[in-house]
């Protein structure tokens, strides 16, 4: 536990010093929010809706940071450490693959949390967004989205031969998920064929969960449970693969 805390603190310092994630996981989502805020203001999501457009996009805005950390930050850091032979140094110590991976997971989880909190603070202060749904359900949905996306990142980072290959994989996962699962374009405006494909992204499931639980629409156990199970399974499978087939070199 002491080792985890020390590694977490030091790796977090390194990550903040590097600034990339501060920009992509904290500042970028805020910028998207501010733009949407100026465009849509407090307008209703559609005629007669009980929630505003911007309340509807809260879940999507949260995923920008989750995506940046899980599909760019985490896999690139781990594979960069492999390429620089830093992991090789850890291999000749009692460190386990899981402590290395889960320290990074915790760091990017923290970025996602900071981003969610700042987005909520700004959107409620300036555009009067209110939380209308179920808080426990929203928190659970957020947590599942974070763990499933970050565990995909752990898998890519744990297995990729080098940083170059990881960054190809990161781009293949990051951009389609960011663009099509509703983080930037609302899911509802996409053509049906596209919707049919992106439905399979775990991030799409997570975002739908966050949206319903934030807005308080359609939050029956029957409708949310299958999506939650999918996310739990993705998390379990990817973490297991990442730890089991971890490459030190």
């Amino acid at each position, binding site marked *: 536990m002491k080792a985890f805390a020390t590694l977490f603190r030091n*790796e977090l310092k390194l990550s903040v010093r590097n600034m990339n994630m501060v920009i992509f996981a904290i500042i970028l989502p805020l910028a998207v929010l501010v733009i949407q805020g100026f465009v849509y203001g407090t307008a209703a999501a559609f005629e007669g809706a009980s929630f505003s457009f911007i309340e509807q996009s809260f879940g999507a805005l949260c995923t920008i940071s989750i995506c940046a950390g899980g599909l760019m930050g985490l896999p690139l850091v781990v594979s960069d450490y492999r390429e*620089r*032979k*830093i992991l*090789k140094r850890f291999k*000749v*110590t009692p460190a386990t693959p899981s402590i290395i991976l889960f320290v990074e997971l915790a760091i990017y989880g923290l970025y996602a949390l900071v981003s969610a909190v700042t987005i909520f603070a700004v959107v409620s202060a300036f555009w009067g967004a209110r939380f209308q749904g179920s808080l426990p359900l929203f928190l659970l949905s957020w947590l599942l989205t974070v763990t499933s996306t970050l565990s995909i990142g752990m898998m890519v980072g744990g297995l990729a031969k080098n940083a170059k290959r990881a960054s190809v994989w990161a781009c293949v996962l990051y951009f389609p998920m960011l663009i099509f699962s509703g983080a930037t374009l609302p899911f509802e405006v996409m053509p049906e064929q596209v919707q049919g494909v992106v439905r399979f992204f775990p991030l799409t499931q997570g975002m739908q969960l966050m949206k319903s639980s934030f807005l308080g629409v359609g939050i029956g156990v029957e409708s949310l449970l299958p999506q939650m199970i999918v996310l739990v399974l993705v998390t379990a499978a990817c973490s297991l693969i990442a730890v089991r087939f971890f490459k030190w*070199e």
Partner: protein
Amino acid sequence: MREVIVVSGLSKSYGSVRAVRDVSLSVSAGSAFGLLGPNGSGKSTVAECIVGTKRPDSGKVEVLQMDPRRDRRKLFRRCGVQFQDCEYQPEIKVSELCEEFACLYDRPADWRALCARLGIGDKADSAVRALSGGQRQRLFIALSLLPNPEVVFLDELTTGLDPAMRRSIWKVLNELKAGGMTLFIVSHFMDEVEAICDEICILSKGRIVFRGSPEKAKATAGKDNLEEAYLALSGEMGGLR
């Protein structure tokens, strides 16, 4: 005497290149062992097979009666390693790097004291990349000593250090040896080997061409200094003949 490192019949190829062929050696507790040989003779491959970062094609390796690959976590609580390539996270400071490695052990040595002993005690707040090559080298020696190891592997440990600093490192290593630590050193420098090692092994093209004490090497080759003896024994006289 108890054998701390036992290697028997170790072979390793990279594609069609046979880097190491049938190497057997043993190192007894509290002694210093020097692995010598020209570039490309397989020294680092042997060292990496012993610490388990490379998998031998055949042969057996035991360190402290453990298999370095199967018992990795148990072994490296009691064993330190300094690799030839000193790599570190960009942006990391000396204190942070030391903390990261110290926290992995149950009862680590005090890294501040180790750094002070190796002459970099005033560098704790510096960025690792801002250190000179020699300072960085000493930092990585300090890291390898963090577990209070029973055995430590040092690959090219004083490359890039000035003469005074090399001597001060030898002194530290001889003190550690006197305290019962077993040293496994991969080196190019005969003065270093003579100052520290009780036994040496010379590799040439992946095979052992000599094993014994530095004195025996000189006697065998009929030379009065170790460097001459080494060149004769490793067949590396080149154009000087």
